[in-house]
């Protein structure tokens, strides 16, 4: 099966999740005896595209257009759809861009798509998927039987392996398109924050933080880890303490980091659904009977205002040693 991996770039550099997309595409190609092409769209050269060979791409297809400096929904879908029918499967990342783009390409190719996939397989000419639904309360197993199977894979789920092999880069022609919806730019927060879905460590806070300003304690701990993002429970998002983008749970995001630290979160069912696939869960809570301790690997019962500063201090020590 020929597989197309759709990469993502921002500000002229490939995003890390692109390596995961190539790894997922590689696994499909290897299971079916096929090859992987990786498509890179940019206004010009994209930093990192020549290293995609090392992550499993046999060929890199590079499409350039002035509109591709930012995300161009219409341009990207027209370009990918123009070559899409040649592939048995097209793999996207289940990110803001991938979830916008995958259905566009699917509709243009006249097939369905499976988003937020955590496992991929091959069954004859069909692609099999596993997807958490109901925010992770249920796992759905399904089968894509169209001529081209379109999937987006959950970040932090498919692990890239770098081999250092070079990949050949060839030019991809971009068809004429009408830019109907256009990106006018990206507003970035003051600090370069990691997203909860992509960070390898997520530190989430709930009502136990008592007031919005105390989230500084979580931000300090995240900074000490370095590769961490701050998340929030629905209660504190609904109260307006934190942005919805940080919400973990059924009406927020589902996360699968290496380490999830729940601070002052009791553990409502809809929150647990969003973080149960984390590799290791730590809970810090004053109430030893809080439901969060039933899913946590390690717990500390105590006052978070004492535990957090100490934890931050110890993590800093560990990082500098």
């Amino acid at each position, binding site marked *: 099966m020929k597989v197309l991996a759709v990469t993502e770039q921002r500000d002229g550099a490939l995003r890390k999740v692109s390596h995961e997309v190539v790894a997922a595409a590689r696994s499909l190609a290897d299971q079916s005896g096929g090859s992987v092409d990786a498509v890179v769209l940019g206004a010009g050269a994209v930093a990192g595209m020549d290293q995609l060979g090392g992550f499993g791409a046999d060929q890199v297809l590079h499409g350039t257009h002035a509109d591709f400096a930012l995300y161009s929904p219409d341009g990207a879908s027209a370009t990918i759809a123009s070559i899409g029918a040649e592939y048995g499967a097209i793999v996207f990342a289940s990110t803001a861009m991938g979830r916008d783009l995958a*259905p566009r390409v699917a509709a243009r190719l006249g097939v369905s798509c499976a988003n937020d996939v955590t496992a991929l397989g091959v069954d004859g000419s069909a692609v099999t998927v596993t997807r958490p639904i109901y925010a992770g309360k249920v796992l759905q197993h399904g089968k894509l039987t169209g001529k081209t199977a379109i999937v987006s894979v959950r970040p932090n789920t498919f692990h890239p392996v770098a081999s250092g092999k070079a990949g050949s880069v060839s030019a991809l022609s971009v068809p004429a398109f009408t830019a109907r919806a256009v990106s006018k730019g990206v507003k970035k*927060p003051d600090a370069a924050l990691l997203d909860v879905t992509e960070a390898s460590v997520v530190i989430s806070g709930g009502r136990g933080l008592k007031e919005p300003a105390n989230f500084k304690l979580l931000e300090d701990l995240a900074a000490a880890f370095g590769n961490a993002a701050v998340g929030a429970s629905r209660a504190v998002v609904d109260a307006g303490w934190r942005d*919805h983008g940080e919400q973990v749970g059924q009406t927020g995001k589902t996360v699968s980091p290496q380490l999830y630290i729940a601070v002052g979160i009791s553990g409502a069912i809809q929150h647990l659904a969003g973080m149960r696939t984390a590799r290791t869960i730590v809970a810090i809570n004053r109430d030893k009977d809080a439901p969060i301790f039933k899913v946590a*690997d390690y717990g500390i019962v105590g006052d978070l205002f004492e535990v957090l500063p100490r934890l931050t201090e110890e993590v800093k020590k560990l990082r500098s040693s």
Partner: protein
Amino acid sequence: MKIAVCLKRVPDTTAKIVIGASRTAIDEAGVKFVPNPYDEFALEAAIALKEQAGTGETTVIAVGTDASQETLRTALAMGIDRAVLLQSAGSADGLAVARVLAAELKAGAYDLILFGKLAVDDYNHQVGVMVAELLDLPCISAAAKMTLSGTAIEADREIEGGVEVMGCSLPAVVTCDKGLNNPRLPSLKGIMAAKKKPLDVKPVTLDGASFEITGLELPAERQAGRIVGEGADAVPALLALLRNEAKVL
């Protein structure tokens, strides 16, 4: 302005989910069903836009069995003018659902078509965007903020590590994210009025599916771990476990 909102009936987010005997669908017995929470942002946006304009018509459309009539009435009680039920057992295939919606929407010549960004049951996360493609309309997905001036829409969508500002012109499709507004609750007067509002039932056939569910399972329960200790003094022991046992540091 003519605004359409596409709505799905889903289990309440607090519901415990049990897998049905078929192993490909959930057991609906005893489950409370509600309008999809993200669709409520779309309903609120439609009602508020009509209120601001002072004129126009709002329509809510659902694909589903007769059980969805109750969900459509909830939307009418919030303030939507009329409802259409595309009567069908539904499908796991996003494109099959998008096709019947697109056929109905095309006939209505709407200026603005709103969806929730995803449905919290099957997390398919595709129907709204597919409808836009099928109708050849511009689409902004997952809008957490939206302003309309004349026929120009500007919307913010949250992306990893930032906010992307998107623009397009009407007619268009927008899928709605949390943050867009605070959906109103139906008033008693609204509930009474909803009973008299038109609700058309149109049988449809969903076909051409290329995605099928082969099985559902409950994820493995996580085993409860251990309490490392109490208070700040437990921190060094915790870090040692994370490093040496869990190997995540």
